């Protein structure tokens, strides 16, 4: 059974995004940075919007962040998500670079279900840290754990 059969989505990775997922597979959170002017940018793209350089590097982040916002989706949803609903989807702003924000899920452990954290524990500004899990489809994705 494939992911799309159960309605669970794996990232459709493009050329610009590929390094992010390759580093994630090694347990590293890295963000694209301009090799000329040093500005971070997300989502990744071929050219620096700040200085228009085409040279980039991937800078390792501490993996610490804060919840910028979150939603609790309820059905109707794709089957793989409906089973876990209501779950949380969050936007995390990185502590190292608050303008860099990643969509993700806050979970009780890296490989725990999307609904494994009581929504009452979520709040805007709550500190989180990254963990990685091998999602179905063979792609490693970042998840977020609440800091104690």
């Amino acid at each position: 059974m494939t992911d799309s059969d159960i309605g669970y989505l794996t990232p459709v990775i493009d050329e610009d995004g590929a390094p992010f997922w390759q580093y994630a597979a090694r347990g590293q959170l890295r963000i694209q940075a301009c090799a000329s002017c040093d500005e971070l940018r997300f989502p990744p793209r071929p050219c620096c919007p700040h200085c228009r350089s085409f040279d980039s590097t991937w800078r390792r982040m501490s993996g610490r962040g804060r919840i910028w916002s979150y939603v609790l989706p309820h059905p109707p949803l794709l089957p793989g998500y409906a089973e876990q609903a209501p779950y949380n989807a969050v936007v995390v702003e990185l502590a190292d670079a608050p303008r860099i924000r990643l969509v993700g899920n806050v979970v009780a452990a890296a490989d725990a279900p999307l609904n494994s954290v009581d929504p009452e524990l979520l709040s805007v500004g709550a500190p989180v840290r990254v963990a990685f899990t091998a999602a179905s489809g063979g792609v490693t994705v970042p998840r977020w754990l609440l800091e104690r």
Partner: protein
Amino acid sequence: MATLKDATAIAGIGQTAFAKHLPESEKTLACRAILAALDDAGLDPAEVDAFASYTMEETDEVEIAKAIGAGDVTFFSKVGYGGGGSCATVAHLAAAVATGQANVGVAWRSRKRGSGPRPWKNTTAQLPTPGQWTRPFGLLRPADEIGMLTRRYMHEYGATRDHLFNVALACRNRANQNPAAIMYERPLTRETYMTSRWISEPLCLFDNCLETDGALACVVVGAGRARDCRHRPVYVHSVAQGLPAQHHGMVNYWNDDPLAGPAWTAARRLWKTADLGPQDVDVAQIYDAFTPLVPLSLEGYGFCGRGEGGPFTEGGALEIGGRLPLNTGGGLSEAYVHGFNLINEGVKQLRGVSTAQVPGASTCLVTAGEGVPTSALLLRS
């Protein structure tokens, strides 16, 4: 410099019935709405030489032109971003007519979303960017994407669910006056709203649009020509599109100021080329596929200050007789046809024939979808 200001007018409007399910195809519905709009204007379909539509429209101009018996077509345009394109269709036709590229333009929207498939249900139809950064994490539907901005907006400015309810209620109250509306004779109460099921917390059922089958169209001609048509011309006074720097579409989480969306960009242009300001607007048709888009738009278009969109809705401000009567045909409670009903309702107001007429209305703001690259029209009689 050439100006579009009052150079063109909307001379005709047409629509089909709105329903959860209509038996006819999108193409048939489009033709019916367009022919009704031409009949309303008193123009022969063979005179049509310009078409404008939005993307996500399944009926393209080749099919429509041959079905309605249009003449030689010399201008055609498609605007992207779904509901963000509604007002831009009229803007593109106005530019074409004002610059002599065409004489009679038709814009339309035909949808069978009430009975048809939901785009987000198609798991393979996610774009690599930005879908790879959002969809795998269960941020699947527009309601989830806008819900994320809504939670942040509430956190930053203290907006409440009561503010969103004020928006939903004003639209529903107007729909209750409009026999053509899906929600005619179906009143909404605060208790019903507050106890309804969640779709994507903080958005509940009544914060979301109702997928509808139906079609609408309008006809744009030069101002002189419009004065010879059947109805009082509704002049296209000012138009604008807006795609802000570093904007990311509905998932606008990655720029410095995610809550200052495309409305702000469109508004700066709209007012710059207008003789009027927000204080001169008698009635507004603001895109409301999700209720929080209204306070965000009220701020963007300058009806109130930053963060004041929630409180602006208090005290019946959006009702008839209030500070800014809103979505007088019912908005999302009339029909969800990607905002085209808001254009036609603006025309009805300025003709003086709305089912919720604002006495003496002579200026109307119409906006397209906020949260995606957008567009707006300032209409006057």
